[in-house]
């Protein structure tokens, strides 16, 4: 593993203003919610880095900052040396971002959408055709290439979203909860592919709250609690012989001062 940070977050802070309705739901009188609070970490080239944390810990917000969809209030992050604040377009060309929030137009076919998003990333036609053939065959999309996305099953739709996200062969693949909502077969296809991408030298950053996924995929883990980096390191360093689940709750209880 080359010790070059391909993704580097430096003191990221992000707050959101809560509406009255949101304050009622969250049972708080605070108008500002701190989603990410001075978060710093580095993910290295060719590794799978996992952001592990409970719901609302700030994982998705962090990934959205890295993908330039939202801007941090303070701090900066760098992908392949490009600042998410100052070089948004360059950053977006270096990443493939997968999240359930990003949807594909149901009217179009996987084949058309692959070409369209290829064009959005400026991929040349010959390269695009080659990647389409390879990726569609790899994920079994080729038989559904001309079927409207709205007519695809959830699993197939996830696979199409995956190949569309990496149409431009990005250096860094960012996945927000990669196996959420997937059936066991599709989830395996996705996790196998992540390992395959790693073998190809790609860097992968994923967020999850599933311990088994971390153990199976991640080289290094960052545990986020309340928007802060609670612990970071390789699985071996972090777990000290314990399971990641036990270690996580140990850290969680240490910070929150309460037993889960």
């Amino acid at each position, binding site marked *: 593993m080359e010790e070059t940070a391909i993704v580097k977050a430096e003191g990221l802070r992000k707050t959101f203003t809560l*509406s009255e309705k*949101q304050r009622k739901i969250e049972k708080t009188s605070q108008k500002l919610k701190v989603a990410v609070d001075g978060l710093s970490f580095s993910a290295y080239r060719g590794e799978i880095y996992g952001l592990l944390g409970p719901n609302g810990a700030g994982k998705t917000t962090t990934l*959205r900052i890295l*993908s*330039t*969809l*939202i*801007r941090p209030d303070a701090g900066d992050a760098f992908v392949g040396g490009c600042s998410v604040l100052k070089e948004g*377009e*360059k950053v*977006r*060309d270096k*990443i493939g*971002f997968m999240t359930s*929030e*990003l*949807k*594909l*137009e*149901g*009217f*179009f076919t996987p084949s*058309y959408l692959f070409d*369209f*998003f290829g*064009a*959005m*990333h*400026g991929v040349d036609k010959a390269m695009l055709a080659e990647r389409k053939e390879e990726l569609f065959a790899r994920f079994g999309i080729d038989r559904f290439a001309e079927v409207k996305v709205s007519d695809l099953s959830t699993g197939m739709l996830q696979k199409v979203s995956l190949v*569309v996200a990496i149409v431009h062969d990005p250096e860094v693949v960012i996945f927000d909860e990669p196996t959420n909502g997937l059936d066991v077969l599709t989830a395996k296809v996705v996790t196998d592919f992540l390992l395959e991408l790693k073998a190809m030298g790609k860097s992968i950053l994923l967020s999850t709250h599933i311990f088994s996924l971390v153990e199976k995929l991640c080289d290094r883990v960052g545990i986020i609690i309340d928007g802060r980096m609670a612990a970071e390191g390789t699985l071996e360093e972090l777990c000290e012989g314990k399971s990641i689940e036990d270690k996580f709750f140990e850290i969680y209880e240490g910070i929150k001062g309460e037993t889960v």
Partner: protein
Amino acid sequence: MKLKALIQKEFRRFFGDPKLIITLILPGVLIYLIYSLMGGLIWDRPQTHDYNVLVLGESAAVEALFETTFGEELTLTHTDDKDAALEEVKQGNVTALISFSEDFDNAVASYDPSSGLPAPQVEIFYRSADDTSSAFYTAATSLLSAYEGSISNAFDVNLGDAQYDFSSTSEVIMSVLGGLLPFLVVTLIFSSCMSITLESVAGEKERGTLATILVTSVRRSDIALGKVIPLSCIAAIGALSSFLGIALSMPQLMGMELGGVFVEYAFGDYLLLLGLIVSIVPLIVSAMTVISTYAKSVKEASSYSGVIMIVVMVLSLVSTFVSGIGDWVCCIPVLGTVVAIQRILEDGAALVMGLISIAVNLAFTALFIFLTAKMLSSERIMFGK
């Protein structure tokens, strides 16, 4: 390449769906068919009737007036039995019964309104539910009113044989077109732009497909242009369809020949009209794109567009109700275009004003595209809950 792909995507989305194409073209076709049909019914309906009228009493003057006016359509039959005659009218066997008071003509000639005595009377018994009877009643009362007026005649208006109205039929149509068409054009363009822009921009935002494009390296200004350019072309087709529907059916609706109207305008007038109409399409599309980008859902965008619609409608109607509008209005989008279109249609002389209006429309379009691009970069607008 990226902008081209964005534009192609919008066209593909639209033209790949036959339902959307039909909803675009159909209004124009329907307008043409309905207006033409209405025109046909109004102007081609046979006006001949066969009036079989009973007369109780006598008036040589009135009967002569009726016979002259109605000609062979009218058959007058004298009767003495009022009850039997009324029964005939009730049964629908005759068109109407006219009852003159005794010695009607002489009584009319010698009647002095200042005497305080009751005036001689004509009574017409008829059936309003019967078209022929009703038509006769209307025509007869109008003739009698005119006759009554002529007896105490002080002066006449336009009763000679000369031609008093020097307007040609084409000029009449041009006047109507000038007053009505700009408003209709703006209305049709607006409705055409509204449906497709709301669906394409607010719809994509609501469905989360716009965010997928935002994660790519495409420039936000390209995304804005990639919406406004194709949507303007599509909206222009819809607006053109509706415009042609109105323009082609208007002469028929007014019972006049089509060819006579169009020769009244010079080729340059057509070019300027086309330029004005074409320039207002991207203006409205880009304005709708701004509110669709701002809105969180199609529903919210629809409510915002209601406000814009009122503004656009008011601007397009102001010139119809306010006289003496100066040339400076060409600096106001929509209003300037409407006034320029009106001037071209009415007297065909609005070159400078028309060109300035086009430039103003395009300048505002550029401003709205810039605003949309800014909004696409705004986290609060694009991802705010």
